[in-house]
């Protein structure tokens, strides 16, 4: 028994990503076709040359047919994947394992979501018949309970914490403003964030991720085949996943200042990738900033800052684009937008661009580090799934 990972056995050799946003004029099929076409072109393959497909969508469709139909895939193994907001990451994890196992030579993971057709604000879970006793809170409300708990535990006063959270939002908007694919391409001021209408608890509109339509995809092959497709493959160093038992909701010991599922997934990923000091070894990180307090706590869960210190590091600019460890250089969920099934793959897309030096110049990070991390979570404090990956440009 053990989690061994597939370090350096599989490489990403092509990626594509649509712009994220309110695509009123484009259907789910359009987004799928666009992301797939970009990705096939990026890897220099045709759809026939891809042996198997994993399609991630949280609730825009069911079954692999939702991918096979728009792409007109002829009798390929196409599987639909769903795991809350980690759906896109899970599609890639499945595709990578399939290649690592030797079952297929070339696999594609494609995530897509058409959120904006619902006509409602925010994200809404697919209704399952039930006894009527389940919580109907929004994710915003569940995550809003993190901020006061964190402030209390570490003696940060409310105003100071509000400034910390606003700093996160300002940073991610700053980065997104430099990303042509981002939903919100506008810098915002701290004052704007602090004055925004409240959604839940102390969280305002600017503390919440954008909700968008979009699609993203990756093609993976065995590492030894990678250079047949690209000169600059991204090697998969670690893929880690943890689903909590949901007991955090009813466990009197849980204090809402950390996400155990994320700590576990990070620990496992670092072991797989041989990382001992993530803050100094990683070139960048894409993390699941669904709400500003989430990014705050993740800086500690992922080992980028000591417990109780992330708020100071955030104010010091440690995770800014020009900081020691840039976090969400593409703007994150906050400003890139969050088409649920696509977001995990969008995070890989930014690693793909940044580590290959292909990000737009105004947000291209400069570093001699070769590793990048993606972190993707689903659910909410106490009842969460978490994914952590590490990718790098150097094998071995």
């Amino acid at each position, binding site marked *: 028994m053990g989690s061994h990972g597939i370090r350096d056995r599989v490489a990403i050799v092509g990626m594509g990503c649509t712009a994220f946003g309110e695509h009123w004029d484009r259907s789910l099929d359009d987004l799928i076709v666009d992301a797939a076409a970009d990705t096939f072109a990026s890897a220099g393959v045709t759809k026939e040359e891809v042996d198997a497909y994993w399609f991630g969508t949280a609730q825009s469709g069911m079954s692999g047919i939702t991918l096979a139909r728009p792409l007109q895939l002829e009798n390929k193994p196409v599987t639909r994947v769903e795991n809350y907001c980690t759906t896109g990451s899970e599609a890639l994890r499945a595709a990578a394992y399939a290649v690592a196992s030797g079952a297929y030579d070339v696999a594609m993971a494609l995530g897509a979501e058409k959120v904006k057709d*619902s*006509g*409602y*604000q*925010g994200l*809404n879970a697919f*209704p399952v*018949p*039930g*006894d*009527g*006793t389940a*919580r*109907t*809170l*929004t994710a*915003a*409300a*569940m995550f*809003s*309970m993190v901020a*006061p*708990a964190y402030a*209390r535990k570490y003696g940060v006063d409310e105003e100071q914490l509000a400034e910390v959270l606003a700093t996160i939002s300002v940073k991610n908007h700053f980065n997104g403003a430099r990303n042509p694919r981002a939903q919100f391409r506008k810098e915002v001021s701290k004052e704007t964030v602090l004055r925004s209408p*409240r*959604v*839940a*608890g102390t969280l305002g509109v600017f503390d919440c991720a954008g909700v968008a339509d979009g699609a993203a995809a990756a093609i993976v092959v065995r590492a030894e085949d990678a250079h047949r497709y690209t000169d600059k493959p991204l090697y998969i160093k670690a893929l880690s996943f943890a689903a909590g*038992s949901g*007991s955090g*909701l*009813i*466990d*009197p010991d*849980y204090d*809402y200042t950390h996400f155990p599922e994320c700590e576990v997934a990070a620990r496992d990923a670092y072991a797989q990738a041989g990382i001992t000091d993530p803050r100094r070894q990683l070139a960048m990180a894409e993390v699941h900033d669904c709400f500003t307090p989430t990014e705050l706590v993740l800086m500690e869960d992922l080992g980028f800052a000591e417990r109780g210190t992330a708020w100071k590091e955030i104010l010091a600019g440690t995770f800014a684009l020009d900081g020691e460890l840039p976090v969400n250089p593409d703007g994150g969920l906050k400003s890139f937008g969050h088409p649920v099934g696509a977001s995990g793959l969008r995070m890989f897309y930014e690693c793909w661009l940044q580590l290959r030096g292909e990000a737009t110049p105004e947000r291209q990070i400069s570093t001699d580090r070769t590793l990048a991390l993606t972190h993707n979570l689903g659910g909410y404090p*106490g009842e969460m799934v978490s994914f952590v990956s590490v990718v790098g440009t150097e094998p071995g």
Partner: protein
Amino acid sequence: MRGIVSSGGYVPYRRLQRSAVAGLLGSGGGKGTRSVASHDEDTTTMGVEAARLALRSAPGAAPTSLWFATASPAYLDKTNATAVHAALRLPGEVSALDFGGALRSGIGALGAALAGGGTTLVVLSDQRDGLPGGGDESAGGDGAAALLVAEDGPGSPVMAEYLGGASATDEFVDRWRAPGDRRSKSWEERFGETRYVPLGRSTFDRALKDAGLTPEGVDRVIVTGMHLRANKALAGKLGVAPEALADDLAATVGQTGAAHPGLVLAAVLETSRPGQVIALVHLADGAEVLLLRTTPARADWEPTRPVADQIAAAADLPYGKFLAWRGMLTPEPPRRPEPQRVSTPAAWRAEDWKYGFVGSRDRSSGAVHLPPSRVSMEGGAVDEMEPAPMADVQGTIVTSTIDRLAYSPSPPIVFAVVDFDGGGRFPVEMTDVEAEAVAIGDRVEMTFRRLYSADGIHDYFWKARPVPAAGPPTAEETG
């Protein structure tokens, strides 16, 4: 000896200042307040709350039947008493029956229980509506009462003995409401008054005569009914001392329809002394009179939460909110999908959890699971659980939030993570609370509520509310 073993009145937390009606409409309203059921309450949930209070004051009693009476039932065709039965976790052998529709059904159920056999929990509950600015809207009230009726015995000492009663029936259309209508209509007042007053007087006299009593021997008289003018006129003609007339709660609670005789009786029992004769007179399509005498056991009985305390611990509700809660005004709903209807098989499987708020406790680790779980979150033991009834356990708020986006019949949702005394945590919606006033460390208790309705199916479950300032079980001074 047969009589009342325990009682409990329930007055919802919210009040409408009658003067607020004229503030919006320019006229109408009046003086004083009326009680208002919360948007998440109906006659069934209020009945549950009253029954919980009555049963808590009679720990040894075991009802053999549950009778639920209301003129504003949450369901037709489907029995409403069964949800009360489930919330109280009464055994399946205990029958649960509705006395429905008419304002007379409340007093009728109580009279039948007093005259009958077995241990009957009589639950009266009502919610009174009227058109904006009208008399019924202002004079009406919402509330419930529960009266536990039994033969005197070791587990059920009778604190108010039934001395007998009398009934008069007369067919005349004084107050009526077509099925489905929210408003009642009534004939001009004088006709009803001329019918009710002599009927009430003769029925009162007959009851006293049969019991061998005289008006002077009656210590407390309660006159209820929706014909307020007749009530008042009759009270002056019963021949009892003016100080014997009980407060009919019109100034504070309003007329709670089918529940009112029970609610006022509960309030009177709570302030009674042993050896007092109480007459309950109710005017509705005739007259009903019930006579009781408190026993020495009254001295040992303590109300769980006196009606007077509930009247005192109230919060005003703006008139606009009142209209919205009563469906007289339609505010913009949150732009979120409305909830889907509850699955009947899923709810049935979860009956103890959903209606009784019973979790499970791992015998080995002691960990409490809400909802119940077969596998323990601590140690992983499988099927080593025992039931953990949590409805009567108080707790403390660990953290809380306000959700301005989520669907609610009356946004925003106030939500708290609650740690229960003796173990167990549950994140739960709060009710009867001002959103901004919730604080960490606040003490809460559980209350049975209606979360929403979809496809006509009501979703009943539990919420948390602040423990009233008066606190739990305080003994009312009975001297």
